[in-house]
């Protein structure tokens, strides 16, 4: 139910004064209500649930999380090699 799918905003328009966007989900385009992310711009990533954008996806945070996990991985790797010696 609370499934959220990441998609990339292609264009923004208004329908009966409700903010809407065309959003690309890996090749499939859907109309999404972006009323609660008024600052959104084409090119932004968003998380969409039930045809409704929940938030703008923070790409810098995404990369930061992956790099932290990468560090865990590298630290673990070093420990492995120490044990290996």
């Amino acid at each position, binding site marked *: *139910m*609370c*499934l*959220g799918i*990441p998609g*990339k905003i292609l264009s923004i328009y208004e329908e*009966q*004064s*409700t903010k809407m966007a065309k959003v*690309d989900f*890996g*090749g499939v385009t859907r109309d999404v*209500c972006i*009323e*609660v*992310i*008024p600052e959104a711009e084409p*090119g932004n*990533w968003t*998380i969409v*649930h*039930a*045809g*409704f954008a*929940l*938030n703008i*996806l*923070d*790409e*810098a*945070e*995404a*990369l*930061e*999380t*992956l790099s932290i*996990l*990468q560090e*865990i*991985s590298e630290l*673990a*790797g070093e420990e492995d090699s120490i044990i290996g010696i």
Partner: protein
Amino acid sequence: MASEMQSNDFLKGFRDAKLVKKVVEEIHQRISRPWSIMEICGGQTHAIMQFGLDQLLPKEIELVHGPGCPVCVTALELIDQALWIACQSKVIFTSFGDMLRVPGSTNDLFSIRASGGQVRVVYSPLDAVKIAKDNPDQEVVFFAIGFETTAPANAMAVIHAQKLGLENFSILPANVLVPPAMHTILNSPNNRIQGFLAAGHVCAIMGYWEYPPIAKRYQVPIVVTGFEPLDLLQGILSTVELLEDGRVEVNNAYPRVVSFEGNKAAQRLINQVFEPVDRKWRGIGIIPKSGLGLREEFRSFDATKRFQTGEIQTQESDICMAGEVLQGLKKPADCPAFGTLCTPNSPLGAPMVSSEGACAAYYRYGKN
């Protein structure tokens, strides 16, 4: 660099097998004793089983499945009310697809559709408004279920219908809220939950400012967690670290989507249309201020006011132990009907129906 990220990099990055292995190893290293951790969201229950993460975790971790499945917790009275409305002439009853097979006292929306009722599945609440606009001589009712994640979309449907001046659109308000359910679980004398994975998309809307007082009051760490394999493992690792260190804190393991204060515009939208009301949860009972009802100025959109359904006598299955499963007290396979009398094709309780129900997850991914 970030702006050049391609469409599937987000998914790929958070499904990296090598990183998954390393985070799993880290969890194994950090853990020294048994811990019971509840993932509140049913979507996470399914993701954990779909990716087989439960098989990779140390045996000391017991993942307890929470009540975060709106289809599962919608009260039988509301389901029966929906079934009654869907049977009326000149009514188009609209709902998310998950709801169609949920058993009411005597039948389900699917069987009403099969016998000629106008029951339509919508992807978005706004689609239901469009159906109302296109069918001015029919009453269009939307079953507004969901947690905080879905509440802004449900609110927007009401506002949109109001803007369009639609008098033939109404909703059956059934939204529920996570924090009151956490209080109920933690207040239970049978509670054994020591840490929570908080539902990432609920927090995308609400933030996690509501959680520090809960963590402090019940002395449980809470970690906001996403849905990809690495998100889930990072959430579990963070919870294990807090538990092992004896730290009662609220962490955010899903910062690319969730901020502390959440989406303020979405919260304003919810508050504009809805107000907290007491709501009954199927299998659990009434939880104070755990639901969203329409505010006075939007009451004309309330299907329960528009259709006088009268008193409905409900009848639950005698065998089904959905309530105990939803509270994390029992596992689906503890139920004598699991996989025999109760299957996704012939469910006794809602958790066997929903794509987020714990029973359906156990059935689908072969856990018994």
